[in-house]
């Protein structure tokens, strides 16, 4: 289950829409052990491509170093698909290198619809998980929560 606050969810979708038709990518850092995506960090797509993304290596070092200094980990690693579904491609699976991260995919193929899905990718195996959008992490189960279940479950 990915629990994410509304502001971060909206920021990810906005970034994906803004960079369309290129793939957008980024990280949401959170305190180590908390599993809370707290700090949204949009990253540059060094490939600037509609079908591929890659974090700029210098920017990645800076962000990873910063997370380390702040005792944070990459809780969410997100990127967008601009013409296909919000599901990890074979490339996504083979390059997934953070076993503890939630891999969020957003599809911008339809300007009218938001497709936002989350996955765990460990040792080449993909598992989809439900996404719970909350108003804030303090009140995780307020009446304003929305739960997006996995469509294929």
């Amino acid at each position, binding site marked *: 289950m990915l629990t994410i606050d509304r502001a971060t969810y909206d920021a990810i979708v906005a970034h994906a829409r803004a960079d369309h038709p290129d*793939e957008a*990518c980024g*990280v949401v850092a959170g305190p180590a052990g908390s599993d809370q995506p707290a700090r949204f960090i949009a*990253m540059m797509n060094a*490939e600037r491509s509609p*079908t*591929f*993304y*890659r*974090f700029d*290596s*210098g920017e*990645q*070092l800076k962000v*990873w170093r910063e997370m380390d200094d702040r005792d944070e980990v990459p809780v969410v*690693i997100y*990127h967008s698909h601009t013409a296909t579904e919000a599901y*990890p*491609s074979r*490339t*996504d699976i083979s*390059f*997934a*290198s*953070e*076993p*503890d991260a939630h891999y969020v995919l957003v599809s911008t193929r339809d300007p009218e619809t938001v497709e936002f899905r989350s996955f765990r990718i460990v040792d080449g195996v993909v598992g989809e998980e439900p996404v719970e959008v909350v108003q804030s992490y303090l009140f995780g189960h307020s009446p304003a929560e929305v739960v997006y279940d996995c469509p294929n479950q």
Partner: protein
Amino acid sequence: MAIEVRIPTILRTYTGGQKAVEGAGDTLDALFADLDGKHPGLRGRLVTDEGALHRFVNVYVNDEDVRFTGALETKLNDGDSVTILPAVAGG
């Protein structure tokens, strides 16, 4: 000669869970050979069979991406710090 090497989460299975290890070598290539001696299998995740750096692994010597400093031929000095980060990429 001691060079500190920071190891990313996904490669810590080779270093017994350690996030930093020490190694020696005049070049990055020599350092990786040295590390492989102490942590078998580690070099195979960094260097291809053809002897080049894996395309989707980022290696930095003193915060500089080694793609700009000679890749595996990058010269190392005592006290240098090496960081390894798997590239974050996909399609």
